[in-house]
C-alpha cells in the first residue's frame, strides 16, 4: 500500500509527463465532479453550495471512493460572476480571496442577477447555473476601453449585484465578503489537506478568461455581442485589447500561492467562423496564454463545443504551452494535429457515463486509448466534468477501471 505522499507524487509525475508531451507510466485520468458529488453524499445541491462543512465532507467522500489522478471535484462548489473577478484586478489581495469565489454564499451576499442557485432562485436539488445577461449598452464600449477595471467595478457591478447598487449596500456587502473570505480560505485549505491525505497532489490553479468571452458572458450578453461583431467591430477589438491586462493581473494574483496552471474555459469559440475567430477571439486569447507563460504559468484551456474549425491555430503557440481540453472536438483528430506540440485532454462523452452501460464504457475506453495513448501527451477525461446527480456510480467505477486496465504504457 502506497503512502499518500507516494501516491500524490506518482499522480503528479503522471500528469506532468503528459503535459510535457511524454509517456507517463499510465494515461493520467481526470475524474468527474459536479452534481453527483452532493447526491453521492446524500445532501442537496443547496447544502453543497452553501454549507462549507457538508460540501467538504461530500468532496472528500467522493474523492475517496472514486479516485483519479487529477480531481476537479475539489475547490469550488458553484458558478461565478465573471465581471466580479475583474472588478478587483488592481487589488490582487482582494481578487485572490473573493474575486474568483464560486460559492452560493457569495451569491447570497452580492445578490447577483446572472447566476441561479439551488434553494434560492431554483429548486434545492438543481445545478447552480450561469445565465449571464446584458449589463452594458453599445455606447459604453468607449468607457470600457478607457478604463476597464473602473468601468466594471463602478458601473457594471452595481447593475449586476442587487446588493451593491447603492454605496451603502455596496459597503455592507464588501464587509460581508471580507468576513466570508476567511471561511472560504479555511474551506479551501481544509479540502486541500484532506485530499492530500487521500494521495491527491496539490495543483493550485488560477483562472483566465478570453477577452471576447468576458464581454459576452459578463457585459453584453452573448447574442448581443455576436451582433456587435458586425455593428461595432473596431470597438469590440479595442475592448478585447483593453481587457487582456486586467485578465492577466487578476489571474496572476494567485501566483504567490504557487499556481502552475491557469484554467481558461472558452465559450464563444464554437460560435465563430474562422474569420471572426481569427479577428476577434484568438489574437487576444493568445495574448492571455502568452502572458501567463511569461510568468511560468501554463494555460489549461477548455475548448467548449466543437473546436474543429480552429484546431490548427493552436499550433501558433509555443510547443508545450499547456493543456488543450476538448469537449466535442474529436480528440483522435486533435491528437493527430497537435501531437508533439500540445497536451490533449478529454475523449469520453459524458453521455456515455450518464446513460451507457459498464460494458459499453469498457469497450469505448479500450478503443479510444488504442488510438490516442501512443506517444503520451494525453490526459483522459469526460467531455465535461459535471456529472448529473443520477449518474450511475457503477459507470464512474467502470471508467476508473478501464483507464487502469488499458491506460498502462
Amino acid at each position, binding site marked *: 500500500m502506497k503512502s499518500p505522499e507516494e501516491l500524490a507524487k506518482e499522480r503528479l509525475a503522471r500528469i506532468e509527463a503528459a503535459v510535457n508531451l511524454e509517456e507517463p507510466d499510465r494515461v493520467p485520468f481526470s475524474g468527474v465532479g*459536479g*452534481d453527483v458529488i452532493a447526491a453521492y453524499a446524500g445532501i442537496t445541491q443547496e447544502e453543497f453550495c452553501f454549507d462549507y462543512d457538508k460540501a467538504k465532507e461530500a468532496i472528500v467522500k467522493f474523492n475517496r471512493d472514486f479516485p483519479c489522478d487529477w480531481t476537479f471535484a475539489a475547490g469550488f462548489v458553484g458558478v461565478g460572476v465573471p465581471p466580479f473577478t475583474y472588478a478587483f484586478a488592481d487589488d490582487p489581495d482582494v481578487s485572490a480571496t473573493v474575486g474568483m469565489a464560486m460559492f452560493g454564499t457569495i451569491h447570497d451576499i452580492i445578490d447577483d442577477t446572472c447566476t*441561479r442557485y439551488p434553494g434560492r*432562485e*431554483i*429548486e434545492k*436539488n*438543481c*445545478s447552480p*447555473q450561469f*445565465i449571464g445577461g446584458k449589463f452594458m449598452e453599445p455606447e459604453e464600449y468607449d468607457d470600457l476601453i478607457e478604463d476597464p477595471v473602473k468601468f466594471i467595478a463602478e458601473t457594471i457591478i452595481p447593475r449586476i449585484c442587487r446588493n451593491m447598487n447603492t454605496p451603502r449596500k455596496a459597503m455592507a456587502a464588501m464587509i460581508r465578503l471580507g468576513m466570508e473570505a476567511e471561511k472560504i480560505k479555511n474551506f479551501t485549505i481544509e479540502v486541500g489537506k484532506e485530499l492530500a491525505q487521500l494521495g491527491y497532489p496539490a495543483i493550485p490553479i488560477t483562472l483566465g478568461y478570453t477577452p471576447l468571452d468576458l464581454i459576452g458572458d459578463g457585459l453584453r450578453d*452573448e*447574442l448581443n455581442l*455576436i*451582433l456587435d*461583431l*458586425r*455593428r461595432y467591430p473596431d470597438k469590440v477589438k479595442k475592448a478585447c485589447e483593453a481587457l487582456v491586462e486586467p485578465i492577466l493581473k487578476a489571474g496572476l494574483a494567485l501566483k504567490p500561492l504557487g499556481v502552475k496552471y491557469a484554467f481558461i474555459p472558452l465559450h464563444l469559440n*464554437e*460560435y*465563430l*467562423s474562422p474569420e*471572426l475567430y481569427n479577428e476577434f477571439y484568438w489574437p487576444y486569447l493568445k495574448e492571455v496564454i502568452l502572458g501567463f507563460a511569461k510568468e511560468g504559468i501554463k494555460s489549461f484551456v477548455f475548448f*467548449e*463545443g466543437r473546436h474543429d*474549425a480552429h484546431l490548427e491555430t493552436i499550433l501558433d503557440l509555443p510547443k508545450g504551452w499547456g493543456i488543450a481540453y476538448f469537449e*466535442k472536438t474529436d480528440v483522435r483528430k486533435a491528437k493527430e494535429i497537435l501531437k508533439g506540440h500540445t497536451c490533449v485532454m478529454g475523449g469520453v*462523452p*459524458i*453521455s*456515455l457515463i*450518464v*446513460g*451507457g452501460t459498464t460494458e459499453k464504457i469498457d469497450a469505448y475506453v479500450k478503443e479510444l486509448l488504442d488510438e490516442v495513448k501512443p506517444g503520451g501527451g494525453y490526459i483522459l477525461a469526460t467531455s*465535461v466534468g*459535471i*456529472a*448529473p*446527480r*443520477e449518474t450511475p456510480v457503477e459507470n464512474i467505477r467502470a471508467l476508473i477501471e478501464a483507464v487502469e486496465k488499458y491506460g498502462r504504457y
Partner: protein
Amino acid sequence: MLDEILKSIVEMEEEEAIKKAKEYLDGGGDPQKLLEVCRDAMGEVGARFEKGEYFLSELILGGEIFKQIMEFTLPKIKSGSVKKIGKIVLGTVKEDVHNIGKDIFKVFAEASGFEVIDIGIDTPEEKFVEAVKEHKPDIVGMSCLITAGVTSMKKTVDKLKEAGLRDSIKIIIGGGRVDESVKEFTGADAWADDAAKGVRLCKQLIGVEG
C-alpha cells in the same frame, strides 16, 4: 428586388436587407412573397451552416435579420393566411434555466413554417404533458444546456408515455450536451445540437422534405 433581399440576408448584410425589405413593401410589394423569400433565405443560411460554411454566429445574425424584417412584414399579412407545415411544443426541460439554444431553434423553426408553442424554461414534466394535450402538436422539442437536463429529458419522455401521448407525437431533443447516446437514453426520436439540423430533422419527422 426580392432576389436582392434574399441575397442580402444570406450574405449577412443586416442594414441592406432591412432597408430593401422596407422599400419593397413601401413600393406596394406583396408581404406574403416577402415572407416566402425571407424563409428561403433562412433555409439557405441553415444549409450553409450544415455544410460547414457558416457558423453559429451566422445563424444568430441571420435569425436577427429575419426577426427584424418580420416585425414590419407580419402585421401586413392576414392572420390565418400563412400556411403552417406543422406544430411544435418547445421548452427547456426541468431544472435547466437556459433559453439561448431554444430561442435560436425557435426562430429557424418558425422561419421554416412551423407553428411553435414556447412553454419556457425549467419546464416540469407535467407542463409538457398538459401542453401536448392542449395543443396537439406534431412534435415536442426539448432543449437543455446543462448535463442535469439529460435526465430531465428522460423523465419527460417517460411522463409523456405514461400519459399515453407518446405515440401521437415525435420527440426531438436538442442542446449542447445532447448526442446519439442521449437520444437512446431518453427514448427520443431525434437529436440535434444545432438549430439548422434540428429544423431539418423536424421536417423529416413529419414527412416534409428537409
